[in-house]
């Protein structure tokens, strides 16, 4: 199977998250058939794996969620650079699939064509890497994260949640479409386990200020300073893997990389009262 080409899957950047799209979602998280997404880890709903090793796998749950994953860059990409001589300083980990091979990661995307592209890409990557069995732990679902997250995830299920380059929605009347808002943060706090991490990155200064403001004001989130971010493999991934970050690098140039990106890490700490 060959990788899909982006030029056939272009779609408008904005999509109304409050509209009633014709989306499919399970009637509750326990009724979700994950075998369609992670065939190696789950059997069809109701059936059990026969052997010991595989039945351990079915106890796994999706732990990383990429909200608004777009073309699936963070989840996994094909390696673009051909290297003849291996270099120790180049990190060839390609996305969440490789960096966290034991963890199930799910991407959520609202736009139909984009989700379709990412899905076809993941299937192609799996096909191409059949021998090593890579990319079996990532998948994408076309879903509306603002409305239907409770249908996919249970309380405290997620360990990391990513909001990479979300749509800034500059106009005041569109602020309610922003993915980071005080009330949605309560939702994300519910799905994150205690000690779970919420990552945001953007190249828009105004959106960055907005995100910091609402995350700081929310009683259930606690900020992790930028110093402790250095050396975190996930931060590296965020800045380099996703499609948007690659685009910004192409347009901005390497020397501006430090200025453009605002990475913030918020730790979800449960306040006991």
């Amino acid at each position, binding site marked *: 199977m060959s990788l899909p080409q982006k030029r056939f899957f272009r779609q408008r950047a904005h999509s109304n*998250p*409050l509209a009633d799209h014709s989306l499919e979602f399970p*009637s*509750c*998280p326990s009724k979700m058939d994950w075998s369609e997404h992670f065939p190696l880890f789950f059997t069809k709903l109701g059936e059990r794996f026969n052997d010991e090793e595989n039945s351990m796998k079915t106890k796994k749950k999706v732990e990383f969620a990429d909200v608004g994953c777009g073309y699936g860059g963070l989840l996994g990409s094909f390696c673009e650079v051909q290297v003849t001589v291996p270099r120790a300083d180049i990190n060839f980990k390609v996305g969440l699939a490789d960096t966290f091979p034991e963890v199930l990661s799910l991407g959520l995307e609202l736009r139909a064509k984009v989700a379709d592209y990412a899905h076809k890409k993941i299937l192609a990557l799996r096909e191409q890497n059949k021998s090593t069995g890579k990319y079996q732990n990532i998948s994408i679902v076309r879903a509306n994260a*603002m*409305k*239907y997250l*409770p*249908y996919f995830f249970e*309380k405290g299920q997620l360990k990391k949640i990513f909001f990479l380059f979300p749509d800034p929605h500059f106009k005041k*009347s569109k602020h*309610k479409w922003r993915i980071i*808002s*005080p*009330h949605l*943060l*309560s*939702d994300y*706090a*519910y799905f994150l386990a205690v000690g779970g991490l919420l990552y945001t990155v953007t190249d828009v200064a105004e959106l960055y200020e907005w995100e910091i403001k609402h995350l700081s004001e*929310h*009683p*259930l989130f606690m900020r992790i300073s930028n110093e402790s971010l250095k050396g975190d493999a996930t931060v590296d991934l965020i800045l380099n893997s996703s499609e948007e970050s690659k685009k910004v690098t192409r347009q901005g140039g390497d020397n501006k990389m430090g200025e453009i990106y605002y990475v913030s890490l918020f730790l979800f700490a449960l*306040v006991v*009262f």
Partner: protein
Amino acid sequence: MTVSPQKNLPQFLITHPTDLSKLLVGYSCLLREFNLSSFNYKEIVAQTFKQDKRNFGLLVCACYSNSGDQVAIVNNLKELLVYSISNMDLVLNLFFALLFRVLPRSGVKVCFSKDNKSILVADKAGHVINYCIEKTEITQKILVDTLSTITDMYLSVSNYLAVCDREGRIRVSFFPNAYHILSYCIGHEGAVTCLSFTSSGLRLFSGSNDGTVKLWDPTNGKELFSLEPFSTVHKHKVCDLQCSASQHVCVCYEGLSVAEVYKYSLTTEGLETLLHVQSINTNSEVLQTVFDVENTLYILERCPPYITSYQFLEGFFSESSSEYLATDCYLSDLQ
């Protein structure tokens, strides 16, 4: 709850939190508090403070404060009005429309908090707004924003705030810390139309457009029991349900002239379930059912005699004569 198109017919019933003899009946433009023991009533004409005199404020919902001396009313002109029952003066008038100019949606449900210091209003845009009354100052705060039309809201005695919307989600959070979500009760396949906590606040009943009534544990969102739809042939949407202090649940379906009464109990294996107690047949479509503190059941119908009451005697609900309600509650002189 559906709003009756006729202007002079009763649209909703509210029972008094402590006094058995008082019953609040809401019509299109006014509210009457009937005193069933002394056979008279007090009337509150719902005023409107909008400049446009052609717009009469049609009542959407109302509720008693926990002490029973105040009534909060929400009308379709996005106004929240609070009256003091004893002397029928307007205590507070709050325009919550002024703050939501961008969202031209009106309120759906109103309730008081336990300490009577806060009034919660749920509106069609998905917000639950908390109006806090401290002496003479009124502060407001958006507690919940579900991004979807709220269909019902319930504040339990255990300070759990449950909100359900037309997507089929039930969001249970703490109150007043509504940012701390206790659970999402997911399982309904259509809009959830009505909610009722049990008197202890530890169990939650919900009725939905998919025809089922489900029992939930609000602390973890687990579905404990699901009542089958009324019939397998037609889909009858649940339009109202309420749980009484005696653990009875009365359910009414849209378009049907019967109210089903169930008892919340345990099976022999210890599972929680609803056992059918009786079916109460009425003359016309049942709009609403309410219990009062002594477990008397009031049923509101679309056609005369409108309101019938049933007393709980020896395990069954038997009709008690309520001629007073039948005659006086029907207004023929309103235009």
